[in-house]
């Protein structure tokens, strides 16, 4: 039983316990004098740090095992056992989950530390960290769960935390609405997940509903059911990972505190969908059609979000759309069956996107909660550390050669091309140009040029060290994470892909070196083209806010998709509710009851007519009755 270990459960449990302790402490003291922030800070970081250490232990534990049997399991207790359904509260670590574990806990820890500075003097300091710990615990359940049902616990758990943290500043109605939107849209996706999971169970779940049994039984699934399961699960992924048509919640989710945007809405939770598709790669491999649909949805989402990203003016919205766009890339990767490329992009993206968000957080912090890039400018001198680290992040996001984002994005585009999805490759390339453009549009406007708001500029300053150190660490990650998976064309040997290989049902096609070269060269050109346009327009000192008209205005308003959903779904739904309540319920459903009551009354009234109240009339009734009775009796006796 070398595969059975006893520490896996601790990884999610420690942050969850932290959440409980912090929550109870906060509840107990929130009406009196609050506890010092230091106590909360230490408790809040303890869970993530310990989880991170355990994640390393998992990684080294796996390394010791032979490649073909690299997994660790722990069954804590039988969770739901009804008939054929047997789900244990069990945890499962293999190369895929160990990679996810490493960066989730590592980045999670950094963001906890950063938040100590960012959230300082917040009156609900304890509550914030309780939520953050709860989120991390849920995410770790999602990653470590041994089967779809346990994964779903984390899946919904991160959705809940997302809701709690987006509506964190709940005095403002808009923030709460954004939280509601996130929860409800996620729930729409979850419906797909639950249905997919149920279908999967009835298809092949009777032999065990954990990944290993499912993988062993996967060949038995019929293609039709397989397709249905894959697509339904992907509906879940579109909700959680903000893809068309359910991406609308993520940009609004920026209402939460910035560290939350970094942790949840960039580095961890939103990648759950990609992880899920990679996790079920043994199913997706059986139905290539499902994969193609995933890839196309992904790349179209990437295009749409990049288009919006080019025209936003809120720094967090720009980053939010870039997240949606990059998630689209990841789905394009896993969709064309390049699961390791997709997951690798998840990995590098976690570093540079967390970095960019935290950098944006520093800027917002310095500018006293100003988020409009057209009110910033020239911050380069005022905030050198933020500037330098943001530059690394921006280069990585834009896909500058030698930065992490370049290697991972290039791997996806190359896989698309190699597997014959030329359309996806081409759109991907277009998106790469746009990515470089919007990233540096934001970067130049914020840090270069002249200060556009002199007063705020004067007051701007570098944030405290507790915030800058995580930035520097993340910048190192964003710079070097890509070197873990260097393709052979650059003399590497795809270490991460090899590490992930046992977890994924992936076939590496052998293609000509020229395709690889074409992919690399076009990627570099895309980056160069994008950054060149951005430099031309915004790198100059006098860059002014453009006045958007026509299509640009349309894109600035996100093609009015939100409004469309509002009028097509929300308004009719509420109207339907009103209609049921005001019209259908009283007249249709309750109608028969009312008619029955009325008929009863009418009958009573009809009988009332004969009750006139005069004795002589009753005497006549009696006479008539007696006569009829006598006639009947005499008849029956044959008299």
């Amino acid at each position, binding site marked *: 039983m070398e595969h059975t270990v006893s520490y896996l459960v601790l990884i999610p449990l420690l942050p969850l316990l932290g959440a409980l302790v912090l929550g109870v402490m906060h*509840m107990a003291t929130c009406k009196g004098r609050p506890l010092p922030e230091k106590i909360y800070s230490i408790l809040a970081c303890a869970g993530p740090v310990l989880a991170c250490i355990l994640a390393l232990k998992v990684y080294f534990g796996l390394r010791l095992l032979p490649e073909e049997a690299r997994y660790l399991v722990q069954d804590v207790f039988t969770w*739901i056992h*009804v*008939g054929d*359904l047997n789900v244990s509260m069990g945890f499962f670590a293999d190369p895929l989950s160990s990679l996810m574990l490493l960066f989730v806990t590592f980045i999670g820890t950094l963001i906890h530390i950063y938040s100590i500075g960012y959230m300082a003097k917040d009156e609900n300091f304890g509550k914030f960290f309780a939520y953050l710990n709860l989120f991390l615990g849920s995410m770790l359940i999602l990653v470590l769960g041994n089967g779809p049902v346990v994964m*779903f616990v984390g899946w919904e758990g991160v959705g*809940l935390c997302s809701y709690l943290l987006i509506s964190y500043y709940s*005095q403002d109605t808009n923030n709460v609405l954004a939280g509601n939107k996130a929860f409800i849209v996620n729930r729409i996706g979850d419906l797909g997940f639950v249905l997919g999971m149920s279908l999967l169970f009835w*298809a092949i779940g009777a032999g065990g509903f954990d990944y290993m049994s499912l993988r062993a039984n996967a060949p038995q699934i019929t293609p039709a059911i397989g397709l249905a399961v894959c697509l339904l699960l992907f509906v879940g992924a579109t909700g959680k990972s903000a893809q068309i048509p359910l991406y609308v919640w993520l940009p609004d989710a920026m209402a939460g505190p910035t560290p939350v945007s970094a942790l949840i809405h960039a580095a961890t939770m939103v990648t759950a969908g990609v992880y899920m598709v990679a996790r079920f790669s043994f199913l997706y491999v059986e139905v290539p059609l499902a994969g193609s649909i995933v890839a196309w949805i992904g790349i179209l989402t990437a295009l749409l979000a990049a288009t919006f990203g080019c025209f936003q003016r809120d720094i967090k919205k720009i980053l939010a759309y870039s997240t949606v766009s990059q998630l689209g890339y990841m789905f394009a990767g896993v969709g064309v069956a390049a699961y390791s490329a997709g997951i690798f992009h998840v990995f590098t993206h976690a570093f540079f996107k967390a970095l960019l968000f935290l950098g944006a957080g520093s800027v917002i912090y310095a500018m006293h909660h100003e988020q409009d890039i057209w009110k910033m400018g020239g911050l380069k001198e005022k905030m050198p550390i933020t500037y330098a680290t943001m530059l690394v992040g921006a280069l990585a996001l834009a896909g500058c050669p030698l930065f992490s984002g370049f290697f991972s994005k290039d791997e996806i585009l190359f896989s698309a091309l190699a597997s014959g999805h030329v359309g996806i490759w081409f759109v991907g390339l277009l998106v790469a140009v746009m990515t470089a453009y919007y990233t540096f549009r934001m970067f130049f406007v914020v840090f270069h040029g002249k200060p556009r708001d002199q007063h705020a500029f004067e007051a701007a300053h570098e944030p405290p060290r507790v915030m800058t150190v995580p930035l520097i660490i993340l910048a190192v990650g964003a710079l070097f994470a890509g070197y873990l998976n260097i393709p052979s064309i650059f003399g590497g040997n795809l270490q991460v892909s090899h590490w992930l290989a046992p977890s994924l049902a992936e076939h590496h096609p052998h293609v000509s070196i020229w395709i690889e070269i074409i992919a690399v060269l076009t990627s570099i050109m895309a980056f160069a083209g994008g950054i060149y346009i951005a430099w031309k327009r915004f790198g100059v000192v006098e860059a002014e806010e453009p006045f958007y008209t026509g299509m640009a205005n349309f894109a600035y308003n996100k093609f009015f998709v939100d409004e469309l959903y509002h009028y097509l779904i929300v308004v009719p739904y509420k109207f339907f509710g009103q209609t049921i309540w005001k019209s259908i*319920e009283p007249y249709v459903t309750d109608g028969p009851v009312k008619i029955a009551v009325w008929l009863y009354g009418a009958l009573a009234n009809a009988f009332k007519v004969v009750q006139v109240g005069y004795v002589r009339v009753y005497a006549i009734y009696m006479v008539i009755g007696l006569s009829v009775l006598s006639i009947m009796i005499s008849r029956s006796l044959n008299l």
Partner: protein
Amino acid sequence: MFENILSVMIFLPIVAGFGVLILPVKKEAARAIGLVSAILVVILGIKVFFNFTGTSGLEFAINIPWFESVGVSYNLGVDGISLLVLMAGSCLFPMAYLLLKTKSKGYYANLMIAQGAMIGAICAADMILFYIFWEIMLLPVFFMIGLYGGPNRLPATLKITLYTIAGSLFMLAAIVYVGVAYHAQTGVWSFDIAQLTALNLSGKAATAAFVFFMLAFAIKIPLFPFHTWLPDAYTEAPTAATFLLSAIMAKIGVYAVIRFVLPVFAEDFARYAIVLAYSGVIGMMYCGIAAIAQKDFKRMLAFSSASHMGIIALGVFCMNVQALTGTLYQIVAHATSTGALFLLIGIIEERMETRNIEDLGGIAYKAPIFAVFFAVAMLASVGLPGTSGFIGEFLIILGAVKFNMAIGVLAGTTLIIGVCYMLWMFQRVFFEKSNARTEGFRDLTAIETLTILPLVILILFMGIYPQPFLDKVTPAALKQVASVSAVQQQLADNTVPVVEQTQEKN
């Protein structure tokens, strides 16, 4: 004393209730008596739970002939089907006495009598005995709504009473038919449910009796479209009566379907299950969508409760062990979550003197403990994993997908419909800005906190570690399903495409 434990649980509250009514006791004394009797029932209930072996068949059974000439007996017992319902009926009551204050002792007396009658209906293993308790349990509700309810209590009382009595009369006719049919087939009289299960009923009369039974239970549950008494009754009733109706009485309707209709009318049940299943999901969606239009949050919760009952009832009609177990589990899960919500809302009503959602706001800042408890109950109600609500709902949806894909998809929408109205209500009541009214909202006192805390812990425990409960329920559910699935198979073989199977192989 184990032989009589169920009788004690039934008659202790009833006797105490009548005692309070007749003897000249004060209001506070009545409350204390109610609390003591409720706690004793809880202790006995827990005893039953832990001594229950789950080896199928009735346990703690007692069978005393009553009207021997027609085979009616005083026949009680607990099995896997009734165990969790019994737990809901016995363990939730102390809170009602602890949290709610009222004007009159009669209120508490009625509460006690209702509890005894409900436990009687749950434990009865004889149809006539069941019918008697079923009728008795309506009376306290009639008095509670009629005497202590809101301003529009009289029409609401009349509606619920007449509606349910009408259903009951149909049931009485059906019970008589079943008894006569048994006599015709075997030559002896019996209303013992274990005996009646052996009946092989078919033909028009049997179908009519099936419909009569279902009518009575559909009204009680309530199933769409027989739910129209519910919003008025739940809204106008005093909190304790709403709690009683939503948390326990509605569940007895579902329980009775599983106990009496499923085994006796297996053939008709299998044939019409699809119709009933649609009634369940449509009711769920209909009431859930109506909930969003409500301004009065008690009425909103009433619709929410009706919506959940639709999904709970659906689990019975899917005729597989996952769905049925899910229903039995959800009966308790929903009792705890909805019970907690109605009690908490009762507290808001008492303190703020309004039930209008628009008048509230910002309660979370004034009363964090209250808000957290409410949130946990709310999340259980929307079926979040980690709370009790998930286990049952998941099992029901899983079973529904097997039963019929369309039903499964519709049932799944409960995930979405629930959060829509709940979050919107939560936003307007707990978040946003507080106003002059909610500024003075007092958080839960120590006693109130300690009263509700066990419920919150139970909600979480049942979500994290449900297996001890499931273990006790599953064997009985398997047995109950086996009887009907044989018939279902037979029907399917006879080329009657009543039950569409999804195409996957198992």
